């Protein structure tokens, strides 16, 4: 099995065209920190984006950055830090969960579409991804979107490539919009709420005029002995203080919250972002459940009646991280049955390769959507060369 490390987009195109001639599938890797995401990679050659590296455009006054796909996220964040800007969707770092080493790349961030706690207020990775360049399965260099945030020219191929896990094309360059880094932040911590009360508290906060930018609930025994319901406020210092006071008053029914300062706020939300509270024990499977917030406690209670699980809530309750024994189907049947009562879905994020090969990692789709999915895959990658089967078997 060969490893290709192209240094230019044209080289990527050559490699894909050659692979097409040989009918030899390609596994695309960036930093390899989230290799456990999706269905296991099939055997085949590897195309690494490591040599496609470097920031190609950074305009702080336009709040936009472009970089080649293999650029380490650390390098991007260092550049943004100098101008006090951020990628607002707070991309999850998978190293804690997977125990991987190496450096996450900006291409991996785009391809996995992973968004952190701020998603609930500021949008997802897909919302900030405004331009891509990629090589499709025909070995053609294709662009969509661009560097300006307002752009509706043509069919949007940007978002569908974000989160496609490299199944539609090899991302070679990505462009994200940015926001100013919050000048200050604080976290309100309510203690001792049960799940339904906690989610009610989170939803009340999100429905307030105070632009809460993080709303999570860590039940007792997950990251601490006492249940903690946490709300993050980010703004200029005077607004942070004002909004915390107003939220204290508005949420008085849920108790008197403690308040964490900027540094403590950064620490706790980094842990929530990276699912640190469930990272150990390592032999547990990890699920991500996406559901309307108010339905989440019911879905979780229903799952907990069937399997031994631990969990916490992010996104006002709309994102549930759930750890289950990594045995059999890792709880898939019970979890998917519980989720089926909603429009939501469940993804198996961490499990041994055998489990991820046997269980539907992503929510099985109705046939009409599966047909579109297969059709779109073929429209980008007619011979199924690129990361084949990483999302769905045969796609």
């Amino acid at each position: 099995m060969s490893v290709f490390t192209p240094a230019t987009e044209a080289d990527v195109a050559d490699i894909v065209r050659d692979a097409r001639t040989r009918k030899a599938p390609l596994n695309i890797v960036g930093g390899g920190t989230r290799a456990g995401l999706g269905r296991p990679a099939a055997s085949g050659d590897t195309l690494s984006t490591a040599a496609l590296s470097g920031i190609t455009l950074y305009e702080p006054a336009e709040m936009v950055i472009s970089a080649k796909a293999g650029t380490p996220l650390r390098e991007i964040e260092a550049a943004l830090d100098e101008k006090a800007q951020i990628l607002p969707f707070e991309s999850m770092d998978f190293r804690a969960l997977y125990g991987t080493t190496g450096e996450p790349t900006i291409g991996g961030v785009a391809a996995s579409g992973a968004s952190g706690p701020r998603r609930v207020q500021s949008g997802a990775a897909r919302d900030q991804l405004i331009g891509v360049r990629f090589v499709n399965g025909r070995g053609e260099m294709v662009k969509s979107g661009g560097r300006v945030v307002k752009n509706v020219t043509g069919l949007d191929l940007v978002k569908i490539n974000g989160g496609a896990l490299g199944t539609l094309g090899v991302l070679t360059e990505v462009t994200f919009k940015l926001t100013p880094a919050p000048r200050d932040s604080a976290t309100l911590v309510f203690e001792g709420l049960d799940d339904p009360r906690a989610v009610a508290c989170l939803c009340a906060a999100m429905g307030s005029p105070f632009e809460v930018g993080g709303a999570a609930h860590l039940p007792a025994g997950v990251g601490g002995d006492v249940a903690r319901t946490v709300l993050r406020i980010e703004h200029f210092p005077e607004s942070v203080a004002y909004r915390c006071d107003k939220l204290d008053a508005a949420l008085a029914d849920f108790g008197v919250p403690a308040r964490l300062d900027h540094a403590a706020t950064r620490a706790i939300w980094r842990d929530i972002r990276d699912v640190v509270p469930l990272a150990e024990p390592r032999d547990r499977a990890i699920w991500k459940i996406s559901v309307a917030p108010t339905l989440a406690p019911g879905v979780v209670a229903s799952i907990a009646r069937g399997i031994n699980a631990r969990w916490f809530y992010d996104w006002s309750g709309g994102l549930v991280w759930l750890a289950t024994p990594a045995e059999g189907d890792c709880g898939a049947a019970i979890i998917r049955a519980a989720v089926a009562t909603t429009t939501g879905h469940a993804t198996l994020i961490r499990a041994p390769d055998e489990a991820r090969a046997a269980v539907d990692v992503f929510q099985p789709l109705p046939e009409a959507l599966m047909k579109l999915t297969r059709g779109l895959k073929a429209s980008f990658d007619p011979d199924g060369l690129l990361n084949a089967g990483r999302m769905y078997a045969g796609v």
Partner: protein
Amino acid sequence: MTHIAFPPPDPAILARREEIIAGLAALLPPECVITSDNERRAYETDALTAYRRVPLAVVLPRSTEEVSAVLRYLNGAGVKVVPRGAGTSLSGGAIPQEDAVVVGVSKLNRILDVDYANRVARVQAGVTNLGITDAIMADGFFYAPDPSSQLACTIAGNIGMNSGGAHCLKHGVTTNHILGVRMVLIDGTILDIGGAQLDAPGLDLLGLIVGHEGQLGVVTEATVRILRATEGARPVLFGFDHIEDAGACVADVIGNGIVPVAMEFMDKLAIEITEAFAHAGYPLDVEAMLIIEVEGSDTEIDAQLARIVEIAKRHNVRTIRESQSAMEAALIWKGRKSAFGATGRVADYICMDGTAPLGRLAYVLKRTDEIVKGYGLRVANVFHAGDGNMHPLIMYNVNDPAEQDKAERAGNDILKLCVEVGGCLTGEHGVGIEKRDLMLFQFDQTDLDQQMRARAVFDPKWLLNPSKVFPLDGRIA
């Protein structure tokens, strides 16, 4: 004389008109099928009024199931379909063709569910943009994208064009606010994608569907995010003697970590025209004006404004006028949002929609002026300064074919300029027919081929809004 070509109508379809109408009449009650010459004419154009085509027929289904039945029938009969919301497209996205049936969503106009705890609303796609906000405003919530046509335009149309608006700087555009759709494919298949949660499983089909310009299907319902309004908001007018200063001020505000909810730009001519119409108190003695709106409590607004005023002073701001009341604030926005309409009272115009990188705005404005003057015409500029989405209004006489030709040529030159400096052809109005033939200025044929291949997965026979978006030559299925 028209500049933009329509494909010649298919005579075989025209010859089968009675049969096709009978087929539709078997599926829908008479009040939902429009066939008379007079009534069809009401659908012959949209807001790109220089182009008109009377459709074969118009149908106004009352349910997703009726839309499905209609599309299944038309697909089987090989008849083209032009989806229509309220017909407010500025790019001709809803203009019919003689051999096509218009499928309008105007009877799908109910708000189905409002869920404040989960901050979502489920609406039928014919609900107007403002209709959502009106229904939830009393409870302190709103639907964020706010195109100037929001009183009339529908969510179906907003999804079709990925519509923006003045407040997108902070809140984003339609694609950032659609969590789910119910959509009917050309073969009648009904799809449900997404829902009340913040993401949908699998490939991001919603990302592809929003902005599809009526080419992938007919959206009949949507689940949209609704947001809680901040405690207050205050628009402030900043007048400048030089356009360059206004542009530099915008960049500096953002560079200082402030993202106001809106930053709108108007040049002298646009100020004069809108002030005469709206009496909003716009300064008439400046070359450029910014409307900057900030949000929060009164104290927060004061603090934010103090920061912005300090920045504006560094850029030689001449006049600053704060709205002193809710009524004054409303007037300021009324002026901005009626800018197109007010211009229409003065002259016929075409409204361009290119986006330029912020750093090139001053240059693009200068070149825009030179280009339009070069054709002997006038231009007023109103646009979203925070995101570089320009709206030059090129004024001309619609009854003078030579002037229309000049206006269109000037518009095309401006859009090419936007692309040359790193921007794009359309920021929020869509390609429609208007910019269809300019697509190769922004894209390579390879880029367009990939878009068309994705399109063909949904509509392999090119029956849905077929004369739009992609140049008529070089199409692939």
